[in-house]
Structure formats: C-alpha cells, structure tokens
C-alpha cells in the first residue's frame, strides 16, 4: 500500500450532523487520505459498530476494516504489530468497561515501546473508546477510566465534547505519530451541530484546551460528556447573575496547563467536573496543578464534582451518580462563597 495525496479541501464542506456521524466522516476521510489507516474492532465491519461509528466503511474499504476475534488484548496487541509494520491502526473498544483486558498491552507495550526502543519505534495507534454513563446501560457500559491512561506515561489521552471537535480531533489523533487514547462521549453521539468536514488536519486540536464561554466569576473545567453539563450550568448561573467561564480541556494528558492556569488566575475560582470517581481522578491533577501555579490567585479551594468512590450504580440510580446541573451549581456556590 502506498500513501495517497491528501484530498483537497473544498469550500462548502459544512453540514449539520451528529457527533457519531462526524466521527464516521473523520474515519472515512482518514482512510481515503492514507491507505495505511486500518480499523480493528469487534463488530465494526458488517454491523458498523454498536454505535454505527464505522458504518459503511467496510463497504468502501474492504479488508482494511477488520471484524476481529473477541479479544481486546488481541486487538491492541495486533495493532501494535501492524504499527511496527508501518500501518496506522485505529482500534475500537466496544464499551469503556471492556478495555481492561487490553490494559497490559496498552500500558506496558503501546505506551512504553518507543522509550523502550530508545526512540527507534513509532506507534501511531489510536484507541477509540465510547465513554461514560447516562444512557441507561447495564454494568461495565458506563465507565470513565481516563485517569488510568492519563497516569500512564507515553500515551496521549483526549476526549471530544461536540461534533466539530469529534471530527477534527479524530483526524489529528490518527495523524499523530504517538499512541492516542481517544474518548467519545457516548451519550453525546446523537448531539447535532454544524460541522465543517473539510478542515485540514490540525495537530493543535489534540493538545489545546478551549474556552467555550468567557466569564469572570469562576471557571468550570470539563471534558467529554461533561462539557454540555458545564455549558448548561453557565446558562443557569448567568440567569442568577453569575458569569462563568467554561473550559473544555480536550487534551487530558498532557493538560494544557497554560490555558487552564490563565483562566484559573483570571477568575480565582475553579470547579472541575467529570464523571469518573473523584478519588485520584483527573480532577485531582487539575486541582493540584492549579494550586501549584495559581496559589496566590485562588480565592477558594478548587472544587471537584464527579463520580462517587463506588462502582457505577445500576442504571436507574445513575441520575444520582452523574454530576448534573444541581451538583455543579452547588459547587459553584461553594467556590463563589465569600
């Protein structure tokens, strides 16, 4: 296989579509642009994946879309081998809770092989993981496990929060020469927005946080499925006369410390929101980082709103578990208390 030239970007590529569809288009475009992009996963070919993110790709790309045997360690392990052969594998893990059988291949192999080989090996592997709760699923289907991978040196970890980022970040992840854990907020797959499908690949979308809403009184930091919650909170707070800044991290590891601390220093008050358990979660790193860099600007301790330190509950109780408007507003009240 040889790499074909990047398809030219055309003028009118904006369209209204869902986050899931934007990912599908991102994969399609990446596969058209580079024949070395191959997809591995369970039920991704004829079925198009349980969330249909790979819909139609097997029809267009044939054996470059592989329905694998049912074995996640095998998926990541063989993806590593393919990468060593010069391919750019994109793996789909069917649900967040099924990535653990692949943990060793991710942590000891994928993340470390470059350092282990003194920089001689490249591992351009993307691992797509539908993440988080809120869809009434059964156990193991609502996990938020980003902290494990953020704590693992040698990986880049990102989470998209809305359709345009889904497209842009996925393309950047596939183009990245380093392994990327790519989180897709599963309860936002059906969110619709205007998306420009002609944007060129921009590595920056992979590392930069983004202010989605400017504000003066406090910063709400969120990522993935919690971004929409944070925006909702800012809406409500505005009606109460409180001006919240909303920061979408996008990159979970490394953190965009510059943008994070700029906002924290500006408002002096920070609330972090994520679905994963708070205990030793990414929120802890954000709190510690903000304290380290903005100690003298902080008016209140950083508040963390997230999952409790218990296994994800049965679906009919998940409303109480997930950080929602009320819990985040309550935390905003706390950081803003004089």
């Amino acid at each position, binding site marked *: 296989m040889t790499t074909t030239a990047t398809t030219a970007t055309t003028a009118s590529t904006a369209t209204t579509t869902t986050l899931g569809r934007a990912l599908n288009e991102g994969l399609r475009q990446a596969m058209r642009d580079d024949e070395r992009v191959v997809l591995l996963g369970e039920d991704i070919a004829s*079925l198009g994946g349980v969330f249909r993110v790979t819909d139609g790709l097997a029809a267009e790309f044939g054996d470059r879309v592989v*329905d694998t045997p049912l*074995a996640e360690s095998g998926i990541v392990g063989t993806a590593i081998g393919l990468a060593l052969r010069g391919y750019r594998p994109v793996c789909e893990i069917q649900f967040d809770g099924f990535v653990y*059988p692949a943990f060793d291949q991710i942590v000891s192999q994928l993340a470390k092989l470059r350092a282990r080989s003194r920089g001689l090996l490249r591992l351009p592997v993307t691992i797509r993981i539908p993440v988080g709760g809120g869809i009434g699923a059964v156990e193991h289907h609502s996990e938020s496990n980003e902290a494990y991978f953020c704590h693992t040196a040698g990986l880049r970890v990102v989470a998209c929060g809305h359709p345009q980022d889904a497209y842009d970040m996925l393309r950047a992840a596939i183009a990245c020469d380093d392994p990327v854990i790519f989180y897709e907020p599963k309860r936002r797959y059906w969110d619709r927005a205007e998306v420009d499908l002609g944007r060129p690949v921009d590595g920056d979308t992979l590392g930069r946080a983004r202010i989605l809403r400017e504000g003066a009184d406090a910063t709400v930091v969120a990522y993935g499925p919690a971004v929409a919650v944070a925006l909702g909170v800012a809406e409500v707070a505005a009606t109460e006369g409180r001006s919240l800044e909303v920061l979408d991290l996008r990159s979970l590891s490394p953190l965009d410390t510059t943008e994070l601390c700029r906002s924290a220093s500006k408002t002096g008050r920070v609330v972090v929101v994520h679905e994963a358990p708070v205990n030793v979660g990414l929120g802890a790193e954000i709190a510690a980082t903000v304290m380290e860099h903005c100690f003298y600007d902080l008016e209140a301790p950083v508040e963390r709103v997230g999952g409790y*330190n218990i296994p994800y509950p049965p679906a009919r*109780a998940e409303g109480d578990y997930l950080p929602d408007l009320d819990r985040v507003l309550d935390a905003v009240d706390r950081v803003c208390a004089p």
Partner: protein
Amino acid sequence: MSPDSGAAPAAARADDVLRLVDPAGTLNERAAEGMLDVTGELVRGLYRDMVLGRRFDQEAYSLQRQGELGLWLMSLGQEAAQAGSIRALRADDRVFPSYREHVAALCRGISPTELLSQWRGASHGSWDPERYHFHIYSLVLATQTLHAVGYAMGVRYDAADSVVLTYFGDGASSQGDASEALNWAAVTSAPIVFFCQNNGWAISTPASKQYARPLSERAKGFGLDAVSVDGNDVLAVYAATRAMVERVRTGGAPGLIEAHTYRMSGHSTSDDPKRYRDHAELARWEAHDPVERVRLLLTARGWADEDYFATVASDAEELAARTRGECRALPEPSLSDTFRNTLCQETEALRREREGFEMFKESFL
C-alpha cells in the same frame, strides 16, 4: 456455508456431534442405549422447562419493548442447551453463567423478578448465588470461567463431591481468560465442566471469524475431555452433560461440552440482525427448533396428551403474567445501597461521602 455465516444446524455436521432426537422427533434408540433411560417423566420435565423458559424470554422481550426494561438479551432458540445441561446437575453443583442463561436460571428456581432486575437497571445482579448455587451473571466475557475454576479448586480442597459448570459463548472463547481457564482446569484437574453454547454468532461476528477449528478440539488440545452435541436436542445435551458431570464427580478429568445451537433473535433488544445475517439462515434453524421436536416425541410415544400440553401452556401464561406484574413492581435502586454494598466494612471516607450525598439529595425534598 459461506465464511460469513454462523454455524450450520447440527444436522449438516459431522457424525461426531451427539444427537439423540432428530427434528422430526424420532429418538435414536441405539445411541441413547447405555447413555440414558429415556422416560416420559424426564422428557415431559424438559419440555416444560423449555416452554416456560421460552415464554418467559418472550415476555421479557415485550417488557423491554414497552420500556419496562432497559435491555434484554434473548435466549430464544437456546432452550435445549440450557435446560438439558442444568437438569443434568445436582442442585448443589455450582454454576457460573454468562448472561443469557435465563432458562437455566429459571430451572434453578431463580424468580422472574430476580432475573429482570438487572435488565431493568434496578441492580447489577440480584439473586443470592449461595441460595441457588448459581452465580450472578458476568457481562465481561469469559471472566466467569476463571472464577469457576477457582471455585472448583475450593471444592477439591474441601474434598466435596460437587461439580462446577460454567457457561460461555463462541465469542467469549476467544478471550485470553477462557484459554487460561481451560488450561488451569486441565493442570489442576479441577472438578469442572465448561459448557459452551455455540450459537453461531457473537453479536454480528460469525463463529467462522472466531476460530479455525471446533472448540471441542481446542479443549482436547488443552488436555480436557470434550464432546460435541446437537445443542437443540435436549436429550443429547442432558445425556452428554450428565455423563461428563458424573465422570468429573468421580475424579475424571475436567471436560468441555460444545453445544451447537442458534441465537434465533438478535443479540439483544438493541441489535438489528438484519444488518449482518440472512433470513435464510434463520429459516434453516427454525426447522431445527429445540422445543418442537420434543413435542413430537412426546406425542409419538404417547407420553403426553393434549391436556398435558394445555397445562404447560397455561403454566407458561401464568409465568408470563407473574413476570409482567413483578417487573413493574420492582423497587427502584438507591445510590445509598451501592454505597453500603461497596465494601463489607464501610470506611470512614465512604461514610462521609455517602452522608454528603444523602444530605444533598434530601435538600431537594
């Protein structure tokens, strides 16, 4: 058979697949001899198990469609594999199921409520494994096979004579855990039987993409005893399981039974099988229905009359009604319970977190 289809019905398979009753309801007396004393009572019981199991599954499916369940994984078509195997066990033989063993669970006395709770989102696992000698469902594929082996090691330590049986699927067989379990059992000679319901599909992935040789051969390669059975023939399943379980109980090597059956519905209520498989395949398998052939056998032998069939049908309706009623009455889960059930001894940290949650929740009342 095209490479992209599930397994063909056992009829089209090699002779080494045990079958006692064919789709026309004819009992192969010669094959049964020595294996099984086929009595009216035995066959009636298995027939009843299957009919009730099927009716229950159908009712659960409807409940999902009505929004009462979040998800349902249908057992339609796999009644013989489940009833035949579970009935071959002693009540104290420990079972480690996967997640589709509803018929087996009902046979063990687990109630509709207990079975539906998980799929309604009211719990992750609701029955007491100790009471029914039947572990809660495992959704992470093949993990339960190792639990089963460990449990069997414990049985051996205790010098007890019960046997462990674990269910898993053709898809789950590809997981590293499944192979580790087969090997571990062989090395330790643990008193365990692996029961694979090979229903041809793992969601949209046909068995032909899952392995290159029959799973029974893999098991032999690990040093287990292994047999293949027509998984839609309840008597064959019963006979094969009983023979293997009794052999294991008396110190024989652990074993594996590969039961060739078919998932007649989609993978779950979220699945659309039309996207990946032919209707023709389903039609082929419908001719091999596990329930129908037993009805024919019972009738042919005069082991059951219309009255009997009517009683079973009405028992099934009663079960369905009970299932509906109990499902809707299932209590809502509470996060406080998850807090309390996370550890045996609630830590101070957890208690504080729980109380914080409870106070916050109450503040909205």
